[in-house]
């Protein structure tokens, strides 16, 4: 695949250079239109191994090319139409992102710029040389055998080449897979010459014409006709597909996760206010508002996950983005259960803030946590045990995240001074959350064993992901046993509970993003390391700081009061 793309790049280079040279500077017509692109957006296209609305296709393309979800406030479809209509203008605009500084340095580009025009990159001799060198490489092996590691720098270089190829494919028509073919065949593109697609092709050119003519009503009519022709050509199960395409459009337009974190933010603030206020009547009022906001947040959160499940037709935890969304929801679920058991608003406070942070992380870094929906690798498909295993494990992560939040609040109480009762109550909650986590992570790890036994024929193979789940379990088991034996007091319990979450960070993020070894290679990715390390550092400093303040003038051994 990569090989072909790189070849295309080498070929395209000569073609494009000639083209750019010949183009005269036509007056700039490239400004975003404030039209509705919904009709066109609902048209199905086939890309990335599945059928999706043109809207999602455009979003994914724009995100990949520019690294941003709304490039200079363009609607994604608008932007794509503009590219194919006015390639000469866009060829000079800085729109292709080169995300890594070391790649920019390697290509001899300005280190401080992030975006470059297609023309600049096409003329870059270092890039051309790299593309030529790597035409022989890149045959993908089946995921069971692992595979050699590619450095993040090299990945980005390849991505840059693919971005140029894709841009070229889009402006020449090859990149528009609009003409339906029966499944497993690839859909034909605008530039292909098959006769069956003639009608669709002509109609799309009508759409383009009306777009170039800036005639909104004609554009709308042409889009509608185009959509219905494509839908008429769809090979099979048209109805389900139509519904899924609608759902996908709604999912993208309504941005449920964005609204969820906004509501969580509001809810979190209200809950904090509840903790600060002292007048019971004021507390009651704020509490009502907080409940309302939490409910709204939960509602849109659940809606988002449900829509994703429906669109993809599978459970929502197959990459880092989805697992972050799911774990955030898990935190809220456990918080609800604990609140029901103990009636302590502090739980909801902590949970709202954690869920908000999780959702913001997912929303803010689409380039690292890829929000697009992809088909699964073979070993992950159609498997009951897999679903159960992953959902259980991630629920365990959620419980531990809540443990972390509660433990941090407890530590904060130690900073403020000693309110023994309050601290003991908080510790009890932490303990409870930890129990949920321990059971779920134990069950999840074992279920992972059952799944591995069922699909690979071995229960346990010391795979890094398995091993780190076990390490996490052991860390928390140490705390539970230590607490049982009264070796750790209430401070030690809170401190160690907070620290143990680092093992979860390693199991969840570290194995896939840092270690990058083992059988779970379908989850491997790069990026975000500074953020995660920053979090780890902050957490460690916080615990150490609180410990120092708390134990000032005392003996350090009080942290480990053996035999007391």
């Amino acid at each position: 695949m990569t090989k072909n793309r790189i070849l295309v790049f080498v070929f395209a280079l000569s073609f494009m250079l000639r083209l750019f040279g010949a183009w005269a500077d036509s007056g700039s017509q490239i400004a975003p239109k404030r039209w509705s692109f919904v009709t066109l957006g609902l048209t199905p296209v086939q890309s990335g191994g599945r059928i999706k609305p043109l809207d999602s296709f455009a979003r994914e393309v724009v995100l990949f090319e520019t690294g941003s979800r709304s490039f200079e406030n363009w609607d994604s479809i608008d932007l794509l139409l503009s590219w194919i209509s006015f390639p000469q203008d866009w060829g000079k605009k800085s729109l292709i992102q080169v995300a890594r500084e070391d790649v920019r340095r390697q290509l001899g580009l300005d280190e401080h710029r992030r975006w470059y025009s297609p023309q600049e990159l096409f003329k870059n001799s270092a890039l051309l040389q790299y593309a030529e060198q790597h035409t022989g490489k890149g045959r993908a092996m089946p995921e069971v055998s692992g595979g050699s590691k590619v450095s993040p720098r090299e990945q980005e270089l390849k991505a840059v080449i693919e971005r140029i190829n894709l841009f070229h494919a889009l402006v020449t028509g090859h990149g528009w897979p609009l003409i339906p073919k029966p499944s497993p065949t690839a859909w034909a593109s605008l530039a292909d010459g098959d006769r069956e697609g003639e009608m669709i092709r002509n109609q799309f050119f009508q759409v383009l014409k009306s777009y170039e003519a800036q005639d909104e009503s004609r554009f709308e009519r042409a889009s509608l006709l185009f959509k219905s022709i494509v839908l008429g050509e769809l090979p099979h199960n048209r109805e389900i597909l139509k519904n899924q395409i609608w759902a996908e459009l709604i999912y993208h337009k309504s941005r449920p996760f964005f609204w969820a974190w906004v509501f969580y933010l509001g809810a979190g603030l209200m809950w904090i206010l509840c903790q600060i206020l002292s007048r019971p009547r004021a507390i009651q009022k704020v509490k009502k508002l907080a409940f309302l906001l939490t409910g709204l947040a939960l509602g849109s959160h659940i809606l988002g996950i449900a829509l994703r499940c429906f669109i993809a037709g599978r459970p929502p935890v197959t990459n880092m983005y989805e697992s972050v969304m799911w774990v955030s929801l898990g935190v809220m679920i456990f918080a609800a259960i604990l609140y029901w058991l103990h009636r302590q608003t502090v739980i909801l406070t902590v949970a709202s803030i954690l869920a908000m942070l999780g959702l913001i992380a997912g929303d803010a870094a689409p380039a690292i946590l890829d929000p697009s929906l992809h088909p699964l690798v073979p070993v992950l498909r159609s498997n009951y045990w897999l679903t159960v295993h992953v959902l259980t494990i991630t629920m365990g992560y959620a419980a531990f995240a809540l443990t972390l939040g509660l433990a941090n609040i407890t530590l904060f109480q130690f900073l403020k001074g000693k309110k023994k009762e309050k601290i003991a109550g908080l510790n009890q909650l932490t303990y409870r959350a930890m129990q949920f986590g321990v059971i779920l992570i134990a069950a999840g790890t074992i279920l992972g064993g059952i799944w591995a036994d069922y699909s690979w024929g071995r229960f346990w193979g010391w795979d890094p992901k398995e091993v780190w789940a076990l390490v996490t379990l052991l860390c928390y088991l140490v705390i539970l046993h230590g607490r049982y034996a009264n070796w750790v007091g209430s401070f030690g319990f809170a401190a160690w509970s907070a620290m143990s979450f680092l093992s979860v960070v390693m199991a969840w993020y570290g194995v896939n993003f840092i270690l990058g070894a083992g059988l779970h290679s379908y989850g491997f990715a790069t990026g975000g390391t500074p953020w995660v390390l920053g979090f780890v550092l902050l957490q460690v400093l916080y615990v150490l700081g609180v410990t120092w303040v708390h134990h000032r003038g005392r003996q350090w051994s009080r942290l480990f009061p053996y035999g007391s």
Partner: protein
Amino acid sequence: MKKIFYTLCSLKLAVLIILSLALALVLGTLIESQYDTPTAQYWVYQSKVFYFLLVILGLNIFCVALSRFPWKKQHFPFLMAHFGILTLLLGSWITDRAGVDGIMRLSEGESTSVVELGSAVLITSDEDRVQAFSVPWIPPYFRFKPVSVQLQGISHALMIDQYLTHADGITSFVPRSHESKKKQTQKQAAVHFKLVGGVMGISQDIWLWEGSPSWKSIQLGPARFVIGKNFDSTVSEGIPQFRIGSEQDGGLSYSAKASNGSIQYGKIREKSIQGQTIQTGWKGNPQIVLEEWIADATPLTVYHEARVQYGNQAPGSAIHIRVSSEEGVWIGLGDRAVLRLENRDVELGYFPKRIILPFSIRLERFQIDYDPGTQTPAAYSSQVSINSESGEKKNILIRMNEPLQVQGFTFYQASYEASDELENSRPMTSILSVNQDPGRICKYTGSAWIVLGSLFLFAAKYRKFSRSSRLIREDV
């Protein structure tokens, strides 16, 4: 005695073991990420220290359970969770001892009943008997202690005096010794020459040998080199070819065909073979300098440390075997060699350990399905038929996540190899992982107990907490 028992059932020991286990595991994953899986297995997961930790953990749990004797109702959840761990450990031990975990390679249209296991064995066979000695895996750059191998009926001891975890072999040819000529009467000639000059200005050593198809005709760059009477007829026109072969009078004859089809012939007398220079007449006019002609040759491969020592790309291992003070012989994994010992030919083979199943499996077709419109594989499947004493079963499909069970063995679709660089080129080789796990029942029971036990344990704690107003201990 009592003191030992109390130490063994102490909570301190438990926490100490859990912590050391956690540390060992962290170390294991770091080694795996830095080097590769076998290295991590060797240093951590299969190491004696790790086994020792697990045994102590088992003992500890067992003693704690005993110390609560006589058991009462409230001990039930505790016992369940902890005996669950014991059962799980027992199950793992049974799997380790008695389980089978190997792979089966199946090419389309072929049938096999051989399962290759992970470890390697040295197999010796003389006229009377066949013996097998297992050769343990040792990580790269780790000092190898020579192992002596005593064959029955032979007084000399064989010595495995060198071991290379990942070895690259260089093959040359030597005259076949007198004694071993008995079996094969036909002579297998070998030629050694140097290709010099040409467009790229190269200088390359080349061996050709009549003994095997892969040595008889070699493609090097744009040209083809053949030993024997005729050109290689499978090569398409327009590719330069060089052929060399023996004549009746003991001399050699050669012919060089250029890309335009013109051919040069030549003859060399027996005495002037060494150092003879032949003009090929190809583009850039590379020359061939003859080094050696062996009328009856046998291959000799010498191994050295491979350039790639870690990861999937690293080649297989090789051992060097010596008889007392004589010069020894290198054997790479999957190869054979013959040693002359006390007037007997002893055949040595260094192979992956294998087991033979009581039935055979034949691969009819291997299939890859792709995601619509992409080159991303969506599913692999092998269509097989099984031949056993009870008859033949046809058209069975093994897919990812859909294994096949036959007589206690389970077959999983693990991977595949295409015979060519091109995907979907035929024939394909399907790789199945084969598994038999007698410890499975223990592992599953143990797992269920652990989960249920912990559930009850925490539920009981919750009730206790609700009843008493006392919260956790305040000592700060």
